[in-house]
């Protein structure tokens, strides 16, 4: 590894941004057609083709390959010493603001949860000045949370907090600790400890995802808790589902960083990619804690 430059590195032209935009375009067009061509509502829209999934898959592959080459270029520049300390700070700040944007995405769904739980459901039950709403729309509706019977009469069971969800909470908490141990190992140049504890973290992530899938199967097969079981099911699956998607992404990031550790890419003072993945993991962890309290527990 060479000495780092002092100059702020402005890369020469790169094809990847444009190519990645094409990838997003394919994902958007393919994804939309796929949805319309495969759902019941989509049938009413008259989209009769059967090709959306191919375009979506092509777009996904296109995107993964593009990002691989894009980041390969970036990694080469970094290993070549072209990234100054100032550039390192740019990457770090960029990652933190990206995580902030993710927080706000989850905030939209958490906000929906609070609004529904504290206002909509009581109002439908006649609270406040809404006695006539209750009387005229669904007089037999009982306000409760979790909403196990919707105004139109769909029923479901509520997902308890103790059991799998509590176990998953423990798993994520432990994974945060093991990742922190790995982080210290990275900073102290202790390769062996880094590899072991990062490996454990990845395994914990995979176990979490496995249990999450188990929980979904249980919900769908035994509890009648589905995405279309009213607002409780909607919120439950959208919140835990988007969280699960982020755990998946975080696990992939950790795996990629694991491979890069094996290749010897990181050092105590050149490790942005690794730390970015670790920050992301902690963010996913915090979202889960919040989720455990307001979705499962309370």
């Amino acid at each position, binding site marked *: 590894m060479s000495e780092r430059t002092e100059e*702020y590195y402005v890369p*020469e*032209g790169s094809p990847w941004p444009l190519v990645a935009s094409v990838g997003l375009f394919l994902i958007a067009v393919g994804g939309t057609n796929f949805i319309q061509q495969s759902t019941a509502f989509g049938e009413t829209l008259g989209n009769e083709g059967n090709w959306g999934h191919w375009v979506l898959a092509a777009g996904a592959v296109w995107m993964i390959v593009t990002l691989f080459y894009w980041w390969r270029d970036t990694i080469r520049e970094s290993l070549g010493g072209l990234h100054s300390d100032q550039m390192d700070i740019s990457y770090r700040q960029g990652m933190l603001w990206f995580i902030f944007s993710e927080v706000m*995405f989850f905030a939209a769904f958490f906000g929906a949860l609070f609004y529904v739980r504290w206002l909509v459901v009581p109002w439908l039950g006649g609270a406040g000045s809404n006695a006539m709403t209750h009387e005229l729309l669904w007089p037999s509706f009982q306000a409760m949370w979790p909403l196990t019977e919707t105004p139109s009469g769909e029923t479901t069971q509520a997902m308890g907090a103790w059991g799998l969800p509590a176990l998953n909470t423990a798993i994520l908490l432990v994974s945060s600790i093991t990742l922190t141990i790995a982080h210290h190992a990275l900073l102290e140049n202790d390769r062996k400890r880094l590899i072991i504890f990062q490996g454990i973290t990845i395994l914990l992530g995979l176990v979490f995802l496995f249990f999450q899938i188990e929980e979904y199967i249980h919900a769908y097969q035994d509890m009648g808790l589905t995405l279309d079981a009213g607002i409780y099911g909607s919120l439950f699956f959208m919140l835990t589902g988007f969280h699960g998607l982020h755990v998946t992404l975080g696990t992939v990031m950790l795996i990629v960083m694991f491979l890069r550790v094996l290749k010897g890419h990181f050092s105590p003072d050149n490790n942005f990619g690794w730390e970015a993945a670790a920050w992301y993991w902690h963010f996913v962890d915090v979202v889960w804690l919040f989720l455990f309290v307001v979705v499962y527990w309370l």
Partner: protein
Amino acid sequence: MTSVAATHEDHHDHHHAPTGWRRWLYSTNHKDIGTLYLWFSFAMFLVGGLMAMVIRVELMYPGMQVVAPDFFNQMTTVHGLVMIFGGVMPAFVGLANWMVPLMIGAPDMALPRMNNWSFWILPFAFAILLFSVLMSAFGPGNPPAPNFGWTFYAPLSTEYGPASTDFFVLSVHMMGISSIMGAINVIVTVFNLRAPGMTLMKMPLFVWTWLITAFLLIAVMPVLAGAVTMVLTDRHFGTAFFDAAGGGDPVLFQHIFWFFGHPEVYIMILPSFGIISSIVPTFARKPLFGYSSMVYATASIALLSFLVWAHHMFTVGMPLAGMLFFMYMTVLISVPTGVKVFNWIATMWRGAITFELPMKWALAFIILFTIGGLSGLMLAMTPLDFQYHDTYFVVAHFHYVLVPGAIFGIFAAVYYWLPKWSGVMYDKFWGEVHFWSSLVFVNLLFFPMHFVGLAGMPRRYADYALQFSDYNWWISIGGFGFGLSQLALLYVVLKCASKKGEAAPDKPWDGAEGLEWTVPSPAPFHTFEKPPLVK
């Protein structure tokens, strides 16, 4: 090691600009990407303008004239979307790209490749959205484009939304990704790439207002993404977010949407505040009055913008305490906004003012934006809003803040910095034509809307009661005139872009201050590779 050395040399060898199509498609240069953004936004401005022309042709006379009511609804919807996400926002990002590094003495934007990605997502996103309009106009069976208004309220966009709704959802996702990445780039550039000595409180106000705008973008674009995602899952996957029968609430949509929507209107005005704060001191030949109060006012406006969203929903049904809260918060915003207008006027007080074109646009901005602000104050009063809600009074209000507000700010910026960008002075004659005709027609277009709105003409209808006929005829004339006036701008910009005109000195405005005037005109491909020292 040799490869590294080679890359280094390579880097130094390539200080001349790359040429051909690669220069634009592969760009990592903040000036080129800024230019791309500005041209894209101008193209969208014309496309959205054409849709406005369709609306005004239809409304010129009472009764149905040229388009079917559903197509009229598609025009109002897509006009709004194109102007907001394709016209105003990319124009501001383009200006930020060009000017923020020049103003703070940075070599480029902090993350140049991501910068290019932010841009190139946009043409694809708008291709998806505009394709649905083309299909609606010319495609087999004319499947409708989005027709539920740019605010896409549920259930119009869920149960009743046409097939194009889903494409609209994904194109909004792409616009959001683009905006968020663009905003991250601006924030990081400002925080990390300022020249030595350029402390935060020495930054030009355009940089400050953009920094705060970028914060707003990162905070609310993901919320918009959440809203469109819920629309998509409500449509296709049986979720009940906006469906009362499942325990959800269509009003929830409005809350989420306007939590994004209100900060969004400041996203579309704060950078213009920054532009005006750069231009007024230059042509008044006095330093900006109350610099730090301008910074704090901008920050207060931004923070308050998160607490006022439900003023768009007074008639929808809300607890009284909620209505009062949102009314008072909204009225509170007029305080920092008033501080700004006061400071601009105080800057001009006893200044040696000259009236070059950028200053003309700035003055028009201050007066006409204030009109839009005052009608906004009227709309903020809950009981008054019961009368004005969803009438042309609202249309008049937000067009006053967006057209002679945000867009006049952009025009002011273009005339102010065009000499720096192109190296030649703009064509004064056609610039004056552009200004005066825009000024007259924009008022003819939007001012009478206050009257028809107060008299009860509802917005978003393809027809109206006969008593509104005379005003609507004049409004349409104003619309056509304003649309045609923009061709003068196209001519002025094309002439500068082809380097025809009087050569511009490095600092064409004698009262101007700031780092951007210390570099040659036109600004060379790379600037401030060695950061300047700011005293």
